[in-house]
């Protein structure tokens, strides 16, 4: 709340990249999230479907986003997410980007993703406000 008010004053909306990676063609959830984030006042860059991990990294770096949200329903999260993280690290961009994942992620894979550096995982049924509040609270505060 207070972080958001501060950003408002200095003309700094939270910038997010919502990314679809790999062969996964399920894009409803990504659209829902993109619109909800827009309505929360965020600036959302949407990657479009079928992006390679390096494209996601390129977009995150060029767009200088505070938040990278990856949407995966294909089951390929355990191979794709580490690739994105590696790429971000190459650009020194991992440390000050909030990385979140949404979609169909089985319970047994979640701990592993968190250990890699995923801040949070939002599956189906997560109340939207909870997701938005999380992003507001954890979006990196840059100087």
């Amino acid at each position, binding site marked *: 709340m207070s972080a958001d008010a501060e950003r408002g004053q*200095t*003309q*700094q*909306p939270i*910038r997010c990249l919502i990314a679809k990676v790999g062969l996964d063609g399920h894009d409803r959830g990504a659209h829902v999230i*993109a*619109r909800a*984030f*827009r*309505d*929360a*006042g*965020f*600036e*959302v*860059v*949407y*990657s*479009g479907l079928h992006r*390679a991990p*390096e*494209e996601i990294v*390129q*977009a995150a*770096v*060029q*767009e*200088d986003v505070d938040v990278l949200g990856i949407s995966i329903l294909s089951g390929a999260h355990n191979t794709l997410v580490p690739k994105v993280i590696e790429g971000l690290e190459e*650009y*020194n*961009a991992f440390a000050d980007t909030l990385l979140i994942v949404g979609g169909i992620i089985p319970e047994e894979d979640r701990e592993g993703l968190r250990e890699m550096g995923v801040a949070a995982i939002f599956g189906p049924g997560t109340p939207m406000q909870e997701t938005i509040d999380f992003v507001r609270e954890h979006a990196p505060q840059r*100087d």
Partner: protein
Amino acid sequence: MEGTDADRRDTATRPEDVDPETAARNERLVESLLAGEHRALARVITRIENQAPGHRDLVARLHPHTGEAAIVGITGSPGAGKSTLVDKLAEAYRRRGDTVGVVAVDPSSPYSGGSVLGDRIRMASTVGDMDVFFRSMSARGRLGGLATATTDAVKALDAFGKDVVVVETVGAGQSEVDIVRTADTVAVLVQPGSGDDVQMLKAGILEIGDVFVVNKADMDGVERTVAELKEMIHRRDAAGDATERRPPSEIGHHGVAGSAGADADADTQNDASDDDTDDVWEPPVVETVATTGDGIDELIDAFDAHADYLCDSGKRETKARARYADEIRRLMRSDANELLDEELRRHGGVDALAKRVYERETDPYAVAASIVGPLRDCVEARRERDEPRTSE
């Protein structure tokens, strides 16, 4: 070149009072940007967009390194295919070895101020190629400020060393028109068929086009749209701004009637290369299918021809200078306004003053004079101190 240029600059007046910490950070950022670091370029654009503390100092540091890039503006109604075209343009420029920067502007929601920036979805032809730097930008509800943010972002890409910088905007509204004016070459996109697009051109967009593109040339109604466009361009050139455009005496050059449809090729290959039309530019109409890339080479030829025309006619410099003149005025006015607003607040705010005027305690002239008067005195005193009796 960089060093000497920077040294020659008049640095007696800093653009902004920045604390040493900010100055040091700006220096580091610019150094990294000039060294080719993408993160630094991205961060510089963010600071420009956010009007973060010290952003003016930042842009001032970039200025000596700008002026090399060819800047192309792409505008046209929503869905005309601008982003798809930008993607294919970037690919074609890369094929010939040019590095590319893109700034794509999308509107923001009037309700939340947020936005979904979708132009990037169409970037598919230059996958993973970091020599294409694509940046999405939200209009953020600003009108006047948008032109400044976009122009300054273009400067960052220019300083970074991009050979070509493409700016995509939605072709509606005055601020959009301002943005494309930061470009050397402006392309206006229309779709065939509807007729609405051509109608829209009457509302001011026609004047800013250097090249007209009928995109979606795979759809019905292309010939008609091309013909309508050509006729409007001729009429535009016949009327008004004869200094900038083709003089009325030359209108018959291609034949008014003939140009309405038949000589598509002559117009696409445009007149700038002909010796007899050196100092006039008749905007060509180019047909493209952005989805397949058809017509992209012709479009780039048209952009190149326009760039050559600008150089040969000396207009590149004239245009750039006019742009800087605009920029100086815009900055000055916005600063002066800020100073006035501050003074207004110090005098109790405009509402309180208006109330006193309403109650006949004072009048608007007196109020304005009481606020501006002291400022004028300061300026005059300063003038006298700095340049004692040189006038008269």
